[in-house]
């Protein structure tokens, strides 16, 4: 095998690993995002009226005006998601799934979680917003 072929194979293998890590990220991240929302895990709280940032979850106050957690939830999700997907990408099983017959069989089925999980999370999100639906 020539050096060029070896380099090409290595590039293909790295490309596959990168793609699989991205898919793992997209399976995990929506769950992490909803967990951050439900359990109040924003990395920071932003007060748009005063342009003030505080670490973690801070309640709204009369001095600071309304609090925004969405930016903080996204950053928490990004850090946790990239970390977990990175770890999964490093695992030898995901690096070369064809070497493991069970994993290579299961992977396409597991990937269905990409579109199933957001649909499962939707009722959870709607329920978490019950304050808006029940407010009179």
């Amino acid at each position, binding site marked *: 095998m020539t050096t060029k072929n070896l380099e090409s194979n290595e590039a293909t293998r790295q490309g596959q690993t990168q*793609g699989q890590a991205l898919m793992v990220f997209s399976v995990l991240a929506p769950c992490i995002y909803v967990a951050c929302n439900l359990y109040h895990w924003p990395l920071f709280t932003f007060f748009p009226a005063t342009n003030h940032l505080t670490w973690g979850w801070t309640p709204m106050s009369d001095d600071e005006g309304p609090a925004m957690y969405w930016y903080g939830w996204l950053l928490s999700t990004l850090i946790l998601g990239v970390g977990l997907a990175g770890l999964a990408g490093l695992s030898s099983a995901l690096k070369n799934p064809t070497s493991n017959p069970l994993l290579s069989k299961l992977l396409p089925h597991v990937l269905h979680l990409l579109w199933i999980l957001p649909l499962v999370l939707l009722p959870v999100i709607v329920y978490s917003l019950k304050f808006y639906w029940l407010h009179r």
Partner: protein
Amino acid sequence: MFNWIHSDVFWSILLIIHGLLAVTLLGAITHQSLALFRNLQSAPQSLVKRFQSVRPEVYTRTICILWLVTFFMGGWIYAQYRITVRIPLEQQGYWWSQGFFEIKEHMVSIGTLLIPGYWALWKNLDKPAFDLTRKYTTALLAAICWFSFLVGHVLNNIRGFGS
């Protein structure tokens, strides 16, 4: 900057750009998802069939870029919305409208988190095992895009910047 242009005009311009980007994204992702659900056996004759008869993979990069740019524009506007639109909406008792906006916020965030996986699925066109996942993930992103567009549009009708 606000010496030259009124704050409401500035945010309205940004909102219009956000809306136009969303329309472009809507067109691209609808085209791609309908093309995935076409029946390859019949020749395109009707308008819908012609609409579907495109190569869906050519839209992937454009959709990823448009989704991210539209998302970041929305994120920029969101802080201003929180002060100048949401507070009056709550004072006027539009709780369901606000609730739907919250669903839009969460679904768009989840859609953005799906973009890396979506991109990877479209980069692996040679793997038939991914075909169904690719099809349904694309359809889900299209549904999120349509829902978010309609909610944003209705909410802007209820109360836009500068109302």
